[in-house]
């Protein structure tokens, strides 16, 4: 209950602000109407921000899964002694403030820019590191719930190659962990401001800050909308997860 108030109050205040009549007072949906009908031209930077954040989310999730999943499975199967070390490395980013990380990242990104250009999608390399602790935890809990060595060995004796073991046996049983890790990564990417801002790249959050300077009403409406978007995404992924879990029963 207290949690709901704690969480809900700022949102209600935010919503109240967007429907305030300004100097003339009263309640009005004028700002919403202006934005939705396209009268206010917040379009440019905002669309740039949204599209680059969505691309970033997709690239980050893909990179994170491609990097983390095979590594974790390999460590579990062949190098169980390294499990603690892997956990330590994966949780390390939690302890480093984003600002401090940028200091280290800036020179790295001058190299990255030379190789991959300065497109904002390149932020995904940094975001994978930011997502690592959360994604690791999500995958880890799913991995420990299944007997990876025995399932792999059973599949191997039945004639499966290693790629087949990974794709046909392990991945279907790790679906919940993969979904959870993906979602939390998307959430981290959509909410990230510090790194993008300090490395002078555009994403949703930097765009919102930019728009806020022109029209605070529009900025807060967009904040509300992006929160709704994230909530919607959470519900969708939750449903998909529940549906696949049901079909597995």
């Amino acid at each position, binding site marked *: 209950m207290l949690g709901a108030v704690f969480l809900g109050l700022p949102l209600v205040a935010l919503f109240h602000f967007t429907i305030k009549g300004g100097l003339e007072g009263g309640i009005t949906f004028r700002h919403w109407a202006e934005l939705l009908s396209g009268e206010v031209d917040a379009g440019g930077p905002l669309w740039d921000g949204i599209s680059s954040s969505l691309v970033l989310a997709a690239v980050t999730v893909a990179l994170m899964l491609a990097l983390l999943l095979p590594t974790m499975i390999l460590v579990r199967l062949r190098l169980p002694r390294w499990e603690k070390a892997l956990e330590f490395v994966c949780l390390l980013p939690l302890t480093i403030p984003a600002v401090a990380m940028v200091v280290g990242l800036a020179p790295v990104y001058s190299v990255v820019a030379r190789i991959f250009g300065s497109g904002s999608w390149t932020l995904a390399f940094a975001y994978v590191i930011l997502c690592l602790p959360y994604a690791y935890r999500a995958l880890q809990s799913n991995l420990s719930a299944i*007997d990876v060595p025995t399932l792999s*060995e059973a599949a191997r004796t*039945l004639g499966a190659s290693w790629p087949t073991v990974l794709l046909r046996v392990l991945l279907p049983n790790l679906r919940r962990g993969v979904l959870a890790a993906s979602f939390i990564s998307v959430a981290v990417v959509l909410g990230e401001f510090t790194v993008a801002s300090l490395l002078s790249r555009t994403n949703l959050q930097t765009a919102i800050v930019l728009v806020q300077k022109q029209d605070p009403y529009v900025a807060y409406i967009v904040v509300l909308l992006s929160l709704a978007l994230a909530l919607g995404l959470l519900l969708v992924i939750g449903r998909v997860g529940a549906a696949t879990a049901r079909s597995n029963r």
Partner: protein
Amino acid sequence: MTLSAPAPATTDDAAAPWVRMSGIVKRYGDVRALDGFSLDLARGELVALLGPSGCGKTTALRALAGLESVSEGTIIVHDVDVSTVPTNRRDMGMVFQSYSLFPHLTAVENVEFGLQMRKVAASERRRRASLMLALVGLEGREDRYAHQLSGGQQQRVALARALVTEPQVLLLDEPLSALDAKVRVELREQIRRIQTELGITTLFVTHDQEEALAMADRVAVMSEGRVEQIGSPEELYSRPATAFVADFVGLSNRLPGVLANGIVSVLGTALPVTSDAVRDGDVTAYVRPEHVRLLPGGVPATVAGTSFLGSMRRTVVTLEDDAKVTVQHDAADEVTLGARVGIALAGNPVAVEAR
């Protein structure tokens, strides 16, 4: 039954072993899990690998499956050296100790998996998988997931999954140890029946001697990475080659005795010893409880405990020098705790060992 079973072994086949593991060494750092392990399996026979935990029996089975690489030695299956062939191309069927069904697949899909890997057509796959599930007595449970099946049922699906591809060798890694006693006995009889019916060469790992003696054509007793003795259950029980086997297979009393000229005197009784491997002098004789009987006027002893085992009774008595002896006798001979009795040896020691 339309599944093709290999033809019964002819005398020629029997001469050349179906599986030959020779001089296998497996090192983990300084530890030798297998230390010159050798074993032959004739076509269609069930051999049990029996031994205490840590003796290397599971490692031997996993080496045959290709799940462990071997440091030295060769593994030949049906005239082909498979020592370096990866697991997925060895054509083995394996049932594991822990439940190993793929949780995201139904029972029938689990059984189909191996056929899918061999690119068998879908309709043929389903037919053979259903047939195999029927063979293990799981008709009508094809669409259940692992968590909807009991432990015994899961292991039967795993057995069907291992058998459906008609592998060269069936490997059973303590498949019954996670099950409760009643299911265990049922399932071991079923495994033996199916194994005989299909005539599939089988290696069975267990630490349970009762299981090994009840199921196997031959039992290989392992100790410290090598086979101590291999033989029929009867041979192992009545003529153990070493003291270790005598102690591990069946119950034995270890009694002090003196050996001279092929005669050992134990508890005042002189008994012939068949083995000439032990030199004359002080020895430990291994005597089965059924070879000791209660005899008024025998060696005096005190009853320290007794347990009723249905058709018979096993009683532990303490001799005057505090040595304990287990006597197996008729359930009708009632004994009371603390009673003074006499015992006598009624059969030869199965093994003697220098003290």
